[in-house]
């Protein structure tokens, strides 16, 4: 019964998302939606390496950035978008495999700082090699509509969440979580630790590149090094934690909360948005370490308890 409710809930959410661009012309709403989808895709992809496999990578922006730059360069030079996307995803996954072999030997904070250093080095290099802004040609600008980018971003989010769902129930996913929970024990029972970490790394990289492609298709103009900057890595991790790391819903809830909340605060509390946001995060983390998912569970449990109490009163 519960399972059917939850499946139905997913479908309803998906339906709403699909219908939205046809029911609302408001560029504000659509922009927020697209940014939420991209961040969801990014967060869900990071969740695979960080949440499932337990390797806290601080350099996720590098994969996101690679996705953007390969997609953008190919697409703006005339290649069809699907091809550009595919090239970006494959290239990024390969890159992840190559650097994953040395990097994943590190553990804990060494891995985190190592990935951070690598990502910063890449971002600086891209900044040096591609200093000029990339903007869509004027004709494309005048003809720009939100519809196509919207569905690409939605597609990226759906794909990433679906992969995360499949992975969680799969043997590979179990292996990843075993590595996360106790690497030594997992190795002792025969789980190929490095292979599982690499798989998680490459899959999360590929999905991040997909999110990057959506970003490149949506954004009319940006500096090429921008998607590589650490801000993206931090935001990704932030929303995943706030939403609930290791869960499926977590990254989605966290992203929505972040994008919508930030925009609302920015519009209504000019000047205080940054402080307000900082305080909000701290409060959430302190009170609900499991994120919004845990918060929802706690509220749900409380509600159920109240219901049971009342029932007993009536019956007793």
């Amino acid at each position, binding site marked *: 019964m519960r399972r059917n409710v939850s499946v139905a809930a997913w479908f309803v959410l998906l339906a709403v998302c699909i219908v939205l661009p046809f029911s609302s012309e408001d560029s504000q709403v659509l922009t927020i939606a697209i940014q939420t989808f991209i961040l969801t895709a990014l967060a869900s992809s990071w969740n695979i390496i960080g949440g499932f496999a337990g390797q*806290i990578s601080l350099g996720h922006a590098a994969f996101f950035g690679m996705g953007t730059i390969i997609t953008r360069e190919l697409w703006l030079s005339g290649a069809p978008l699907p091809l550009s996307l595919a090239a970006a995803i494959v290239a990024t996954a390969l890159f992840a495999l190559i650097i994953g072999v*040395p990097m994943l*030997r*590190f*553990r804990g*904070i*060494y891995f985190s*700082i*190592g990935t*951070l*250093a*690598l990502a*910063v*080095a890449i971002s*600086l*290099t891209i900044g*040096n090699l591609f200093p000029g802004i990339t903007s869509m040609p004027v004709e494309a600008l005048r003809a720009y509509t939100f519809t196509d980018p919207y569905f690409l971003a939605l597609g990226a989010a759906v794909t990433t969440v679906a992969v995360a769902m499949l992975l969680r129930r799969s043997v590979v996913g179990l292996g990843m979580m075993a590595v996360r929970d106790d690497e030594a024990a997992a190795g002792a029972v025969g789980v190929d630790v490095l292979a599982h970490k690499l798989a998680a790394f490459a899959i999360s990289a590929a999905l991040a590149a997909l999110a990057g492609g959506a970003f490149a298709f949506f954004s009319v103009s940006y500096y090429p090094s921008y998607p590589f900057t*650490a801000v993206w890595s*931090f935001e990704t*991790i*932030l929303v995943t*934690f*706030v939403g609930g*790391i290791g869960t499926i819903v977590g990254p989605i809830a966290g992203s929505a909360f972040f994008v919508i909340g930030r925009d609302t605060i920015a519009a209504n509390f000019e000047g*205080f948005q*940054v*402080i307000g*946001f*900082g*305080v*909000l*995060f*701290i409060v959430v*983390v*302190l009170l609900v*370490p499991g994120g919004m998912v845990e918060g929802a569970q706690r509220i749900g449990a409380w509600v159920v308890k109240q219901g049971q109490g009342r029932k007993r009163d009536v019956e007793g």
Partner: protein
Amino acid sequence: MQLVIQSAISGLLIGGMYGLIALGLALAFGVLKVLNVAHGELVMLGGYVTFFLVAVVGLDPFLSMPLVFVATFGVGVLLYLVLFRFVVRFDIDTRIKNSLLISFGLVLILQALAVTFFTADERAIITDYSTAALTFESIRVPFIRLAGLLVAVALSVGLQQLLDRTTFGHAIKATSEDWALASLAGIDIRRVYLVAFAISAGLAGVAGTLIALGFSVSPSIGLGWTLKALIVVVLAGLGSIRGLIVAGMLLGLAEGLASVWLGGAYREIVALGAFLLVLLVRPQGLFGRRE
């Protein structure tokens, strides 16, 4: 050739500063197992306190250091009591994750507060001896940089002495090794945490003085210095206090040489690359203990 020597020396001197910033961060992480990415904001705060002491009271920056230490030490106490005290309730892994999040929220708050109280303008300190330098055969060793390195070394040695020779230092070491055991042995770990965190903040403050002297201070400088500090901490190797200044100097040296040989645009990139190479060869860092 002379250019290479000069760049190398400049790099080593700046590296001392990197090491000092890393010192506080390493202490907080080593003892509390807390990753405080707002460390750079404490450096920024120290820089502003220095600036006001120098500009308003007319104090010499080096003489202001004890006062700056006390001020940021106090902020550290406050931050611990209000925030980090709750984080240390969790197990180690959760601690790291949660402290990362909380301190990131702290970064936003402290930056915004700094803009409100200090304005966003760049501030700097100049003294009568800011341009003074020791010269050896046309190689210039700026006095301020040299003094900064000496301060960093002194504080590092002092901290090591505190840890090795005093009872409280032993308590700190015990807590960082195994807090459960330390607690059982009768150590008040909460006090250890409080003082260790506050010292880390104080060290950050003094580093801020050097930053204000050597560069400039503005509300947004924090994250850049935190990143440098993180690199140095990992390069030195977890658990190593002594190695931090050396690791910082080596990072500075790598940057300086990269700049001379490959041009200014590749300075940071090469240094980061060198860092990663070292990690590949010695995964536990230069002076860390092999797990």
